[in-house]
């Protein structure tokens, strides 16, 4: 038995095999004068394998072998110029051979004409050029790859550049055509740029991107500008901080320096704070009415219409600013008290007031006479109580101008006296000199000042509007029948005398109303001045009847209680705040407490209240 062992089987037994089939991967020419081919060797089968490249040329029956296996690296074949023909198809095969066998690749057809891929351009030059009066630009210069023959026109190259700031992600690509330089104008100053160039033959492939060139773009010449802006910014910040600090520290005082507060309306001598503190004496003292009476010419504003009960004619109080001939005395409620002066026709409270001792002057306060009965009763009381009438006393009501800002009409004194907007003062100013010799004026608490609040007595109690009306009109707007209007019909009360006006001079701290004496010789409705100059007299308000009738005391002043009658409806809540107010309430409850005599002064509390 002969065992014949085939050598190949022997090697196969050892796990070795002929080489795998090689494959020609790529052929390239860099200048269209030479070219190279590379192949991928297959598995070598575990044995050293020899590769050979053979080729045929179009139109040439001969087979040639690769002239150069080295130049282009391993597994390559380099065809030099001698062996390269353009416009000729090469048929190339690679043969892998090892001990076991060989293997041949598929033929690869290649025409050098169409495989041209040059090397990248070389000698990249970057320069930032800054011509005068122009923005700086980047000038890029390069050279074609060394081996490409461009001068003879054998190859025509076209170039492409790309650049980006160092940190950017995307390249900015520019086609440069056949030129070998390029200008880039849109640059970010202060940045470092990277530049690359590549080229392409007229009918070939693009080369790889050349080596990176970098260049630093100089900053703008506005460096100094930047510094200046920084300085300006810092300075402004510092200034702002200082201002903020100053405002914080000085605070209000600085504010007042720039924006002085608007002065509120002020009555000379009247201190709001005094009002708030409730010291009416001080208040009135501040007003200048130290004593009652005193010379307060400057405070004289208005005249009140005073009704002379004896005369049964309302004495008109002349309002300084607005003599209103339209005013007609309107009758009060029939049940209302007498002494309702007609606020329509201002007239000085004449001596009738003085003379009318019998019945106190009753000033109807525009607050309205709610209950006709009451005032009547009160009036009767008043009259009755009045032992003395104000003789020779012309009640004057001091009142400030129509503003009656000094007479804060905080609350609608008489809500139930819708008509009153008018001269509360006028109403108040009813004098009934004929009664009882002493007239006590009862001021409705509301009207208390209604000498002011007279105004306030508003429909629905709009103080401010009342004030306005106080100035503006002499007759009640709402209702000609305003009870507070001095009733004409109440003959019992109304004195026969024509209405006269009494000018209110002032109100002193004791709550006395200082009135200017009425001029006897003239029914000077407008000539209060005369009265002003001659003398000043006072009339004390004895009490205020609920119908907002001021009951004046005609007798010389004697400090006494002032009674206030509050209309039942009238119970301003503010009164409760004050003990005096409570007293008022007490008074209201007990009309019997009213005293006519000796009531010289108006209780300042009501004034105070009204001030509030």
């Amino acid at each position, binding site marked *: 038995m002969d065992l014949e062992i085939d050598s190949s089987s022997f090697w196969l037994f050892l796990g070795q095999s002929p080489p795998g089939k090689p494959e020609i991967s790529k052929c390239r020419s860099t200048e*269209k*004068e030479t070219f190279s081919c590379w192949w991928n060797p297959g598995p070598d089968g575990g044995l050293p394998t020899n590769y050979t490249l053979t080729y045929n040329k*179009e*139109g040439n029956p001969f087979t040639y072998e690769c002239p150069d296996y080295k130049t282009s690296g391993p597994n390559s074949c380099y065809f030099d*110029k001698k062996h*390269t*023909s*353009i*416009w*000729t*198809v090469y*048929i190339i095969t690679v043969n892998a051979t090892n001990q076991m066998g060989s293997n041949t690749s598929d033929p690869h*057809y290649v*025409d050098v*004409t169409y495989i041209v891929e040059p090397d990248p351009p070389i000698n990249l030059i970057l320069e930032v050029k800054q011509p005068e009066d122009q923005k700086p630009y980047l000038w890029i210069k390069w050279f*074609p790859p060394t081996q490409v*023959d*461009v*001068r*003879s*026109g*054998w190859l*025509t*190259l076209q170039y492409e550049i790309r650049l980006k700031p160092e940190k950017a992600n995307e390249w900015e690509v520019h086609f440069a055509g*056949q*030129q*070998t330089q390029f200008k880039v104008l849109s640059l970010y100053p202060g940045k470092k740029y990277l530049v690359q160039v590549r080229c392409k033959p*007229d*009918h070939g492939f693009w080369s790889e991107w050349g080596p990176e060139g970098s260049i630093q773009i100089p900053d703008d010449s506005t460096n100094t500008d930047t510094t200046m802006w920084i300085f300006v910014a810092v300075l402004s910040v510092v200034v702002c901080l200082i201002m903020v600090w100053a405002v914080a520290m000085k605070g209000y005082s600085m504010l007042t320096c720039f924006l002085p507060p608007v002065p509120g309306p002020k009555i000379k001598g009247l201190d709001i704070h005094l009002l708030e503190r409730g010291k009416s004496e001080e208040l009135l003292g501040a007003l200048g009415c130290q004593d009652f009476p005193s010379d307060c010419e400057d405070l004289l504003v208005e005249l009140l219409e005073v009704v002379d009960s004896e005369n049964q004619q309302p004495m008109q109080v002349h309002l300084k600013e607005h003599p209103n001939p339209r005013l007609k005395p309107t009758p009060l409620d029939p049940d209302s008290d007498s002494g309702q002066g007609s606020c329509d026709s201002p007239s000085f409270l004449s001596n009738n007031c003085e003379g009318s001792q019998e019945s106190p002057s009753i000033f109807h306060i525009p607050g309205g006479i709610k209950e006709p009965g009451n005032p009547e009763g009160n009036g009767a009381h008043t009259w009755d109580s009045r032992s003395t009438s104000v003789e020779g006393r012309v009640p004057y009501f001091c009142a400030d101008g129509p503003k009656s800002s000094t007479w804060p009409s905080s609350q609608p004194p008489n809500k139930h006296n819708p008509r009153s907007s008018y001269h509360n003062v006028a109403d108040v100013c009813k004098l009934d000199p004929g009664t009882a010799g002493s007239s006590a004026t009862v001021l409705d608490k509301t009207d208390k000042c209604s000498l002011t609040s007279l105004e306030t007595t508003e429909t629905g109690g709009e103080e401010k509007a009342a004030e306005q009306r106080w100035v503006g009109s002499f007759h009640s707007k709402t209702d000609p029948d305003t009870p507070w209007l001095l009733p004409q019909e109440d003959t019992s009360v109304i004195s026969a005398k024509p209405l006269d006006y009494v000018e209110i001079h002032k109100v002193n701290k004791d709550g006395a109303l200082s009135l200017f004496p009425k001029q006897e010789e003239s029914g000077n409705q407008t000539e209060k001045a005369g009265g002003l100059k001659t003398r000043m007299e006072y009339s004390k308000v004895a009490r205020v009847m609920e119908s907002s009738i001021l009951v004046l005391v005609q007798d010389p002043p004697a400090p006494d209680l002032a009674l206030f009658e509050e209309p039942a409806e009238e119970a301003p809540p503010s009164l409760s705040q004050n003990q005096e107010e409570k007293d008022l309430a007490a008074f209201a409850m007990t009309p019997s407490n009213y005293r006519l005599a000796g009531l010289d002064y108006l209780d300042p509390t009501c004034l105070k209240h009204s001030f509030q």
Partner: protein
Amino acid sequence: MDNKGLSLTGGPYWLVLVLVSSLLLCKNVASVPTCPRGAVNCEVPLGELFDRAVVLSDYLHKLSSEMFREFNKQYAQERRFITRAINGCHTSSIPTPEDKEQAQNMPHEDLLNLILRVLRSWNEPLYHLVTEVRAMREASDTQKALGTQETFAMQEALSTQEALTTQEALTTQEALTTQEALTTQEALSMQEALRTQGTPNDILSRAIEIEDRNKQLLEGMEKIINQVQHGVRRNEAPSPWLGLQFLQKADEDTRLFALYGLIHCLRRDSHKIDNYLKVLKCRIIYDSNC
């Protein structure tokens, strides 16, 4: 290559630049005659002639390359045909330089005449090419329904495959890269599929344009030769083309092979002409210092 002022022409250099740039930019290359028609004594400068010629030859080669590429895509027969197309160009009989040295060693006139001869040799083949491709398109119109369906199916298959690939790619990174490769390939193939949908038209339109440009280049070359050779002309016979019979064979494979050969040879010859003209231009106009 630095653009130097023309040593021979100088003045109309700017005209040349405008012309060259317009020719390069516009696909529809329209000749801008320096001399109005009918002018007798007007002579276009040689540099301008060369520039025009180079632009035309460059464009011709690009058209031929595109036509060849489209033909291969549609019929994908290159591997099959190339083996049979070797040495099959009818112009092979015309001796042409095969490398740079040979081209540089050939004198201007020879090279110019060579170009002229090759160009003339293509007149007839191009004419038949257009005719034949037109006939083929008409023939394929009858099959258009089938072809359209096929194309649509192909597109749908491609898009479906693309979608599936996309879904898979969302999971792994490798799939992503794969997807990118696939989508890129598929995008390209889709694009070309769309383009080749009316391939007969494209080949036909390109064939028609090539025929026109070839005639224009021929005119230009004759003018150049007149100037360079001062009217001395060699009337060398163009190389005959004998492929018509194959082009008109009923056998489609034969026809396709004939068509392939024609387009293949056209691509090569147009490259030759372009190359020679550029060498001549640099040699004559720029004194070999382009």
